């Protein structure tokens, strides 16, 4: 099994607050890694550090992705290399047309890969195919990005972007929050379809439910900015019964 991303002794802060205090994590190609932990454990900060969010300052340690040290890379450089984050709260951007935004993003990636850009007609054909598969309403692609979308529609729009951009490393940051059971099933099905031997998923979640639909290969428990435990799905079962306190003495 080859490594997709190796995080070594990662320390990071937001403002003056030290949140990650030495994360060591190996994320394998083709595998689904679930990241669990109580509130304030550092799950979201870890995902922000991976995608290069400007609020997060890495003070020590490295993030190596596809054998390249990306710790100091710009967010767009990481994205073009295949790192994608489905946001917990996707921002609404009035005036930026959803389809135009997606075509700009796709063509930026195609340019990075040395491929010619898709023209409007070619892109629209691809987009329509994807929204049909996801069961989305076609009018959503002509609206402003995420503006006025329901919680479920916003999450589906994140999945649509993932399908269009075909990333290699996907972070799903609490993708299950705010979804009803039908929407959760729909989103999970779409993610499962995207599972391939070359693509890695990192699922950040508080709840077991999504892991019933998307079965993880590894589960990592974070607390106080460190990885306390790594194992399989049995960890989730233990957490369900006992809560996070069972790992406190590890």
């Amino acid at each position, binding site marked *: 099994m080859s490594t997709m991303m190796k995080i070594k002794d990662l320390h990071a802060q937001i403002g003056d607050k030290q949140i990650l205090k030495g994360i060591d994590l190996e994320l394998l190609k083709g595998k689904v890694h679930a990241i669990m932990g109580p509130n304030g454990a550092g799950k979201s900060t870890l995902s922000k550090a991976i*995608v290069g*969010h*400007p609020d997060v300052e890495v003070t020590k340690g490295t993030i190596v992705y596809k054998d390249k040290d990306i710790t100091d890379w*710009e*967010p*767009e450089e990481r*994205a*073009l290399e295949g790192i*994608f*984050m489905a*946001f917990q709260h*996707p*921002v609404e*951007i*009035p*005036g*930026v047309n959803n389809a135009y*935004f997606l075509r*700009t*993003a796709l063509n*930026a*990636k195609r340019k*990075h890969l040395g491929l010619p850009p898709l023209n409007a007609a070619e892109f629209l054909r691809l987009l329509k195919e994807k929204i049909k598969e996801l069961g989305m309403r076609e009018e959503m692609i002509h609206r*402003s990005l995420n503006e006025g979308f329901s919680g479920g529609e916003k999450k589906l729009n994140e999945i649509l*972007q993932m399908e269009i*951009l075909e990333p290699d490393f996907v972070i799903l940051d609490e993708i299950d929050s705010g979804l009803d059971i039908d929407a959760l099933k729909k989103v999970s099905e779409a993610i499962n379809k995207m599972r391939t031997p070359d693509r890695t998923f990192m699922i950040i979640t508080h709840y077991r439910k999504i892991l019933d639909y998307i079965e993880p290969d590894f589960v990592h428990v974070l607390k106080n900015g460190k990885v306390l435990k790594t194992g399989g799905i049995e960890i989730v079962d233990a957490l369900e019964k006992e809560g996070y306190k069972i790992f406190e003495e590890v």
Partner: protein
Amino acid sequence: MRILDINLEEYGAKKALVQKLKSMGMPTPKTEHYRYFGIRPILDKEYIPYSPPIQSIEEADHIEIVDGMVTKAPKSIFVEFLTNPKVDDSHYDQIYYINHLLVDKTIHFELEKDMELTIVQKFTKTGAFVPYRIKISTQPGINVKIEEECIVYAEESLYLYGYDIDLAKDAILQLLQNRVTGLENFAQIASHSVRCNKNSEFRLFTFDFGVAKTLHNYHITLEENAATNANHVIFGKEKAKLGNTFHIENRGKDSRTHQFSRNILKDKARGIFDGLLIVKNPAKYSAIYQDSKTILLNDGAFMVSKPQMEIYTEYISEATHGSTTGQLDEEALFYLRQRGIAKEQAKEMLVLSFLDEIFEKLGDEKIKKEFIELYEERE
């Protein structure tokens, strides 16, 4: 000559204007609508006065005005020169009266039928002081679109001009003022007066892009059931001072004012939006709306935004105003970058989305393209 040296006693023939100016006094840095513009150095500067001679007008598909004189016009437009035009006696700007005082011949365009018209203004006299006035009057019930373009070559000069527009009953006039100024030491103060008669509609779009020092002062009056829909975009950079001030008076019942301002400022540019909407006592059931938003692209940029209302009637159907100044939404910027869009392109997408409502309303891709070209210019 200096503007401050103007001797009012020499203009005895224009007694009413002299009286008006004496009662108002000359503009100073403390004059409310000039407070943030830096009027003193402009009024204090020595210029060579220039009075354009009347010349024959060449037939063309557009109107061309070079340094205050009409040089080209379509045959279908009636052009004359007025020696004693009717002056707005309740304008708030002293420069309006100074401008009329100094002008012997006001250019008058009489518009008699529906039309789309382009007015190209060329400013070519370096070091000059060029005052002139343009009067536009319409026949009742017509629908006219005017696009004004500015071409600026003049440096270290001051142009004082303005429109006196008399919009007849039931007429619609859309005035698009596209002011792109690429010269830092070009100054322009323009005072406009627009009278909207019963059931008429005045649609104003102003685009102030560039690096110069320009201020436009608009006095707009609305009679019964008249409407004005005013939309403004300022994009200033380097040391630009670009501004618009307004007194819009709803005088007749059921009159409506809708004003919408979007401003983008970078470097050390300053933008001014100073708008006073007034609802007079007879203007019952009127509606006024004012909205100004600004994005500062860096720390040195500065916006003066003063939406204001004065309402003298109890019966009003809407009165809303608001103003915000901030920076680009960092979370939105990050979202776009996380999808692989380069930072500068992502910024441009957000800036365009901010202006989108005005561009959409205008439906003119040309102005949008000009904005993008100017925005994309790198130092």
